[in-house]
């Protein structure tokens, strides 16, 4: 069946030829043969290299900055401090919400520094090495103040203020759901209280942040490694007092972002400002050290929960206080509220929680600021809820799978609106759980674990269920009170006179493979090959206004917009073909690059011929048709829920505490799979990142607020050697809320993996009474706890 002529937004089409195929990525040939073009590759003659002088202390007052020695270094052309940037207001992220304190991030530290790594000056030189020479000659005098470094320190009170506006260091304190749970808890059979702590991590995209700007007299061109070109354009125009049409922002090939590049960085704005101020092209390429200590981090939270259960393990009520260490500044435009609001808003996840109370708090500290990091609070809420359920199951003597079965949202509940006022569309919560358990051999697990324990081996099995809201639309952001509501997106699909197709869209890939998936969607709509479809993103001069790529939004929102726009274009092609073939438009089938009359393949005309006429010989068009072949559409969804169950089997070396992952199983449902290879790749990368959060990565600070994990020798990003093979299984529940039936799935791997690994590790040492409620879980913690619990002087041989 073919319905390429179905009106936009009408019935979902089903005759897919390309959607669903494991096509290898169209963008890879260039990327893998060195023909990718990243911001660092942009070469404009006369470019000055910028290096930031960064504060070496976490908190203090700037007494003076002496740039004379730096200006004397060979090759140094300029040194810029906050005084030179007085005309720029700084970045202010706004939220209209009670309990939110507005703060500003100046482009360069003005009178005080708030974290070690904060930029205080910029040195510009003919090349990077000379700029670094200059940077080390800038003398910054700072009167150091005691640093505020943790949530607990802030809660105890008495710490100095990071921002004057917030004497108690609280930038947001918001009760999202107030409900008096006392009586419900009192009458519950079991009440569990639990605290879960999660470590601070940094995204470490392969390509760090970087920007290159040049000013041509009345217009600025800024190449930048960003996920959100239009947001950067708005911020740069505002900071520089320009109309947005005077600013072109281009995200060329971008080597990963994971959220770190979905906010506007002060460094990229400064590069733009300086290009005009100095009338010279300016480039900044972040190095790895800067990316670790000075870029946006995330995920450091404390969850304090109280939950009631019936004797059968059914949740009666849940209350949570979520404390997020948002670091020194509120990132533009999402604000520092993004983590606490997400956590408190979505904690119940895939479980039915009849009564719910939630408070979200953003604590500011003298650490690098945070941005949305892949998963945004959902790795933490999943860990929190799953630890809670495991504990309740153990205390009630109920099987861990059974307690989940009794609380998961059931098929008959959809659409299900939870106590958190979130409406879940259909998913496969129970089904994915059962499938994962079967894959893991859960029914035979107790035996296996017993046998292993008898041999002195510590084996653990864990599994977790979660939901992942994807494609957040305008109402969600508006509901949070955000001044910027990045919900909709737009696509334009055009056919050129040769029949070639170009898609331009406001979403902006940085590794996700849109050039392939969007081509698959559009190729099916128009009856052409994906290789004939070119996808252009990330250039504000070339694409419609849009919000870029983050929050697993692109395939839901941008993909739907492209699907709808292509549908409109298909309608026009059908009308033009019908005119030529003397048939009714409804009888036209678009296939293999031509249009034919249904049932009579011989009555056909090539799309190239139609396209030629539509541009070059418009006298052949029907009278009421406009010239050209171009259609545009936008989409703004309510959000749609992917879901998954992750399961793992781990082994802990009782001597060293080292954890190895024997199996890792993912059963996930992201609706209609556009390209299975890309979905698998996203799951692989996401799970690897989640394993990193569970076992390896954590930014560590000393009492002065110095980052002690400032290199990749100390910040333990795992390698392929530490990451296991994955066993992936897919379920497909088509979404009602996207035109293609696809749901987003860019974050799920990262959401499930920390909780899953922790659950397995906890299972391995459950008989020793060792709590595992804090990530990353280190070998040292496990080894010493195992030693103490077993009091075994001989930890035993193991290979």
């Amino acid at each position, binding site marked *: 069946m073919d319905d390429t002529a179905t009106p936009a937004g009408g019935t979902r089409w089903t005759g897919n030829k390309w959607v669903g195929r494991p096509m290898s990525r169209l963008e890879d040939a260039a990327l893998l043969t060195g023909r990718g073009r990243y911001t660092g590759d942009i070469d404009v003659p006369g470019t000055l290299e910028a290096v930031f002088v960064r504060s070496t202390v976490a908190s203090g007052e700037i007494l003076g900055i002496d740039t004379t020695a730096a200006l004397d270094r060979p090759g140094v052309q300029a040194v810029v401090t906050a005084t030179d940037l007085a005309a720029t207001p700084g970045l202010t992220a706004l939220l209209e919400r009670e309990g939110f304190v507005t703060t500003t991030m100046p482009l360069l530290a003005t009178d005080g520094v708030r974290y070690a790594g904060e930029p205080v000056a910029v040195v510009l030189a003919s090349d*990077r*090495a000379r700029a*670094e*020479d200059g940077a*080390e000659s800038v003398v910054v005098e700072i009167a150091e103040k005691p640093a505020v470094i943790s949530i607990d320190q802030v809660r105890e009170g008495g710490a100095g203020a990071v921002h004057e506006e917030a004497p108690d260091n609280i930038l947001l304190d918001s009760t999202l759901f107030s409900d008096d749970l006392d009586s419900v808890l009192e009458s519950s059979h079991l009440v569990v209280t639990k605290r879960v702590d999660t470590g601070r991590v940094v995204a470490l995209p392969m390509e760090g942040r970087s920007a290159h700007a040049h000013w041509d007299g009345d217009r600025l061109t800024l190449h930048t490694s960003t996920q959100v070109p239009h947001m950067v354009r708005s911020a740069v125009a505002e900071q520089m007092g320009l109309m947005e049409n005077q600013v072109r922002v281009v995200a060329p090939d971008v080597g990963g972002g994971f959220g770190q590049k979905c906010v506007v960085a002060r460094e990229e704005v400064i590069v733009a400002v300086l290009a005009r101020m100095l009338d010279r092209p300016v480039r900044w390429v972040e*190095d*790895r*050290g800067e990316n670790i200590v000075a870029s946006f981090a995330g995920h450091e939270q404390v969850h304090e929960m109280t939950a009631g259960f019936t004797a059968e393990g059914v949740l009666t009520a849940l209350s949570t206080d979520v404390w997020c260490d948002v670091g020194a500044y509120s990132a533009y435009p999402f604000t520092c509220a993004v983590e606490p609001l997400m956590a408190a808003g979505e904690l119940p996840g895939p479980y039915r929680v009849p009564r719910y109370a939630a408070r979200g708090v953003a604590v500011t500290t003298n650490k690098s600021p945070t941005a949305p990091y892949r998963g945004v609070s959902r790795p933490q809420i999943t860990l929190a809820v799953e630890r809670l359920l495991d504990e309740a199951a153990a205390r009630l003597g109920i099987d861990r799978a059974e307690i989940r079965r009794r609380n998961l949202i059931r098929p008959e509940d959809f659409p299900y609106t939870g106590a958190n006022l979130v409406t879940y569309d259909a998913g496969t919560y129970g089904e994915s759980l059962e499938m994962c358990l079967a894959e893991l051999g859960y029914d035979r697990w107790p035996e296996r674990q017993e046998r292993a324990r008898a041999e002195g081996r510590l084996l653990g099995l864990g599994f977790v269920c979660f939901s992942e809201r994807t494609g957040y639309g305008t109402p969600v952001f508006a509901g949070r009170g955000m001044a910027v509501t990045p919900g909709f997106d737009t696509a334009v699909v055009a056919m050129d006179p040769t029949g070639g197709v170009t898609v331009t869209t406001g979403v902006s890939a940085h590794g996700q493979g849109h050039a392939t998936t969007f081509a698959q969607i559009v190729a099916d709509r128009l009856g052409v090959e994906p290789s004939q479809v070119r996808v252009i993103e990330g250039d504000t001069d070339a694409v419609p206004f849009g919000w870029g790529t983050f929050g697993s939004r692109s395939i839901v929102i941008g993909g739907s917009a492209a699907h709808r726009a292509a549908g409109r274009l298909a309608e026009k092609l059908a009308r033009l073909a019908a005119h030529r073939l003397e048939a009714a438009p409804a009888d036209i089938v678009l296939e293999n690059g031509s249009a034919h009359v249904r049932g009579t393949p011989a009555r056909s005309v090539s799309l190239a011929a139609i396209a030629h006429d539509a541009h070059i010989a418009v006298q052949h068009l029907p009278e009421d048709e406009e010239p050209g072949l171009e259609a545009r559409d936008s989409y703004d969804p309510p959000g749609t829920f992917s879901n998954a169950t992750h399961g793992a089997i781990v082994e802990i070396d009782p*001597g*060293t*505490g*080292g954890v190895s992952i024997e199996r890792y199983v993912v059963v996930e449902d992201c609706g209609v799979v556009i390209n299975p290879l890309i979905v698998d790749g996203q799951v692989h990368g996401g799970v690897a990142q989640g394993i990193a959060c569970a076992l*390896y990565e954590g930014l*560590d600070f000393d009492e002065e607020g110095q980052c*002690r*994990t400032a*290199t990749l*020798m*100390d910040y*333990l990003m*795992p*390698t392929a*050697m*530490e990451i296991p093979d994955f066993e992936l299984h897919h379920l497909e529940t088509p979404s009602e809320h996207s035109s293609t039936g696809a749901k987003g799935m860019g974050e799920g791997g990262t959401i499930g993996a920390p909780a899953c690994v922790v659950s397995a590790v906890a299972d391995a040492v459950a008989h020793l009474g060792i709590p595992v409620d804090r990530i990353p879980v280190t*070998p*040292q913690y496990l*080894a*010493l706890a195992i*030693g103490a619990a077993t009091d075994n*002087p*001989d*930890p035993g*041989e*193991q*290979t």
Partner: protein
Amino acid sequence: MKPAAFTYHRAESVEHAVSLLGELGEDAKVIAGGQSLVALMNMRLARPSALVDVSGVRGLHHMVLEPSGELRIGALVTHAAIEDYPLVIPGFEILPKAAALVGHWPIRTRGTFGGSIAHADPTSEWCLVAVLHGARMVIEGPGGSRTLGSEDFFGGPFMTDLGHDELLTEVVLTEPRERSAIREFARRAGDFAIVSAAVAYDIVNGRMSGARVALGGVASVAVRAPAAEAELEGAEATPEVFARASRAAAEDLQPPSDLHGSADYRRRLVRVLTERALADTLAGD
């Protein structure tokens, strides 16, 4: 992450290298494989004014087993060359096993044995092997050559007795042993070990003889564990003896605490890894 400015000089011979080092003064540095030095320079933790590149110097790539049973290793022999050495070197079977634990393969193809010894990282595998096998370091300087034992050569973390105008040309491993093994624990494959343990002994009349236990990551340089060696010496090679020796190895120690491991954790690792290394020596039985 760009180094401070420096000049570059390519040495043609050992003598040339020594004279260049003399001419260029105290701030000049030897570069061999560059696997430690370049990273330090990029972070500007090292800022030599000049580099004397010895990688083209001939005559420092040898591995020679002397009739005495000692093994001479040229300073420029790479980690990978040892790992992939096609023959078994009697008495020093630990070498390829240790080599495989040094960093990642690309690093091993460039990094050198002499560079590791001169760099003196407290958990370097080669420093551990040097201590295990009572190494003698052969040093060329303006006044000719001198030889130092590892006790005198290693001064502390990243510190040796090498003068600024001296070149390490060769390391002589002594005390070949019939049986040897190495174990270490690192969070990620290829990382520097948190703790490493190497053991070696001969079997004489069914009992252990010439027993040696060396530990890395527990002090400022690799150290021997005399109490553990005493437990092994003259005893039969049994799991019970190994367990006692491993406990003895840990008891003596006051290891440092840092980001990577507390003193308690390091003590535990010493016990575990020593015992496992000793058990490995029975693997062939």
